[in-house]
């Protein structure tokens, strides 16, 4: 059995390029070949989940049926004018939607084997489903279209690791054909993204992740014994890992976005020069953007809206801070049930709270601090190092260093 993991090597792109050719010719001539696009998507999904991955494939099908049925039932409830917009039912729908993911994430705590419900991309699919349910709750998604919903959920370029698109945005592209001029521009951007992705993932990602990372890891391990086992090797690990994480993941996202463009779908970008962020808040607008915007829109803003409307807290500062803790704790748990993912979440929540406090302090004491190119560069430098430190926590290397 041939098994093709998405964007694993240049060969994948060659095969994909040939397979997409009829679709591209169609789009160039103002037609979207729906049946052909569906066929290609289906084949490439099968190629991810066949052979020794067949258990994942079965889990994916079961998951898909379950979530589509759930979304349909909730939308049916919401669009029946006789029903009121019940909050407990909404909560139930969300809980049921995330239940499979929770089981998959909790299984490693109890069993040495991964859960049978798990498959590559389940986290990202769950984000899409929960977003759909929340927008149904808000009354902005009013009709259920099984075909479009399935196309949206199982859009193969983004299935394994995002970027996380949104239903209404996706459908707008899916339902239309870009003008030839626009599509040529998209193809140009798509090509550029894929080339840059090669450079990031296969060159720089390989350099940092495969060549350098084991070296600095080894150096850090043999230099253990000092205070908290801190050594130059560990400092090296922090920067090398951070670079690896960025180039590997940003490269991957560029592939997914580039391939989407060729299919006439403008999947949102995921990274926007995170290294030049001038504070942590700015960083989250530049790093893994579709994930952080998802958390911002579906967790943080909804929580703050609810808390302010029902006056849960006396001050809006407390409201914002509790919101940050909630958001980043959930993000930590989502990454995995280990102490270092949760510590990473708490670290970023604290960083956000301190950033807000600092911004307020500066507003109150205008003119007290100079603001120029130098202070800006300092802020960028400080943010970069704060973020690299958080990635050191995230990497799990401290767990190896201290406890193994």
């Amino acid at each position, binding site marked *: 059995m041939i098994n093709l993991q998405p964007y694993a090597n240049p060969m994948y792109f060659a095969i994909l390029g040939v397979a997409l050719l009829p679709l591209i010719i169609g789009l160039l001539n103002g037609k979207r070949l729906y049946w052909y696009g569906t066929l290609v998507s289906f084949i490439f999904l099968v190629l991810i989940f066949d052979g020794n991955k067949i258990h994942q494939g079965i889990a994916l099908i079961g998951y898909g049926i379950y979530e589509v049925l759930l979304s349909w039932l909730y939308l049916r409830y919401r669009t029946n004018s006789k029903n009121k917009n019940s909050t407990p039912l909404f909560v139930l729908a969300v809980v049921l939607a995330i239940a499979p993911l929770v089981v998959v994430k909790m299984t490693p705590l109890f069993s040495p084997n991964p859960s049978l419900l798990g498959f590559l991309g389940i986290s990202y699919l769950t984000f899409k489903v929960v977003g759909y349910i929340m927008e149904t709750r*808000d*009354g902005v998604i009013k009709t259920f279209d099984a075909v479009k919903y399935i196309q949206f959920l199982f859009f193969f370029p983004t299935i394994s690791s995002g970027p996380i698109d949104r239903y209404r945005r996706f459908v707008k592209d899916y339902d239309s054909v870009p003008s030839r001029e626009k599509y040529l521009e998209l193809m140009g951007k798509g090509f550029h993204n894929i080339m840059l992705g090669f450079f990031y993932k296969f060159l720089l990602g390989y350099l940092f992740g495969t060549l350098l990372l084991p070296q600095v890891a080894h150096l850090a391990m043999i230099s253990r014994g000092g205070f908290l086992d801190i050594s130059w090797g560990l400092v090296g690990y922090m920067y090398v890992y951070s670079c690896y994480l960025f180039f590997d993941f940003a490269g991957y996202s560029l592939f997914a976005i580039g391939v989407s463009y060729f299919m006439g779908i403008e999947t949102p970008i995921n990274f926007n020069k995170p290294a030049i962020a001038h504070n942590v808040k*700015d960083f989250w607008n530049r790093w893994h953007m579709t994930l952080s915007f998802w958390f911002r829109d579906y967790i943080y803003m909804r929580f703050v*809206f609810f808390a302010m409307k029902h006056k849960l807290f006396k001050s809006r500062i407390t409201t914002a801070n509790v919101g940050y803790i909630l958001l980043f704790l959930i993000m930590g748990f989502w990454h995995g049930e280990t102490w270092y993912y949760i510590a990473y979440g708490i670290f970023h929540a604290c960083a956000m709270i301190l950033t807000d406090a600092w911004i307020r302090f500066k507003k109150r004491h205008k003119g007290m601090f100079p603001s120029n190119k130098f202070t800006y560069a300092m802020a960028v430098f400080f943010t970069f190092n704060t973020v690299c430190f958080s990635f050191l926590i995230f990497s799990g290397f401290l767990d190896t260093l201290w406890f193994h």
Partner: protein
Amino acid sequence: MADNDNVQSTVMSILTDLTGSDEVTKNPDIDLFTTGMLDSMATVQLLLELQSQLGINVPVSEFDRTQWNTPNKIIAKVESMQG
């Protein structure tokens, strides 16, 4: 149009209050998000104020930052939602 004047002045006073500066009236096409004048917290406050002062219900799902990013765009949106 007395109604529209009312929308304009109400939105401007809410924004002045939330951003803590009268930059919004001086430059009604300023991007409130890229300049960091509004954050998510202030956005929610804006939505709640629109609800209580003008009776306009904007669900969080409807708040697309690219369409609500300047004072003028917000005013236009609110006017269109008032019908």
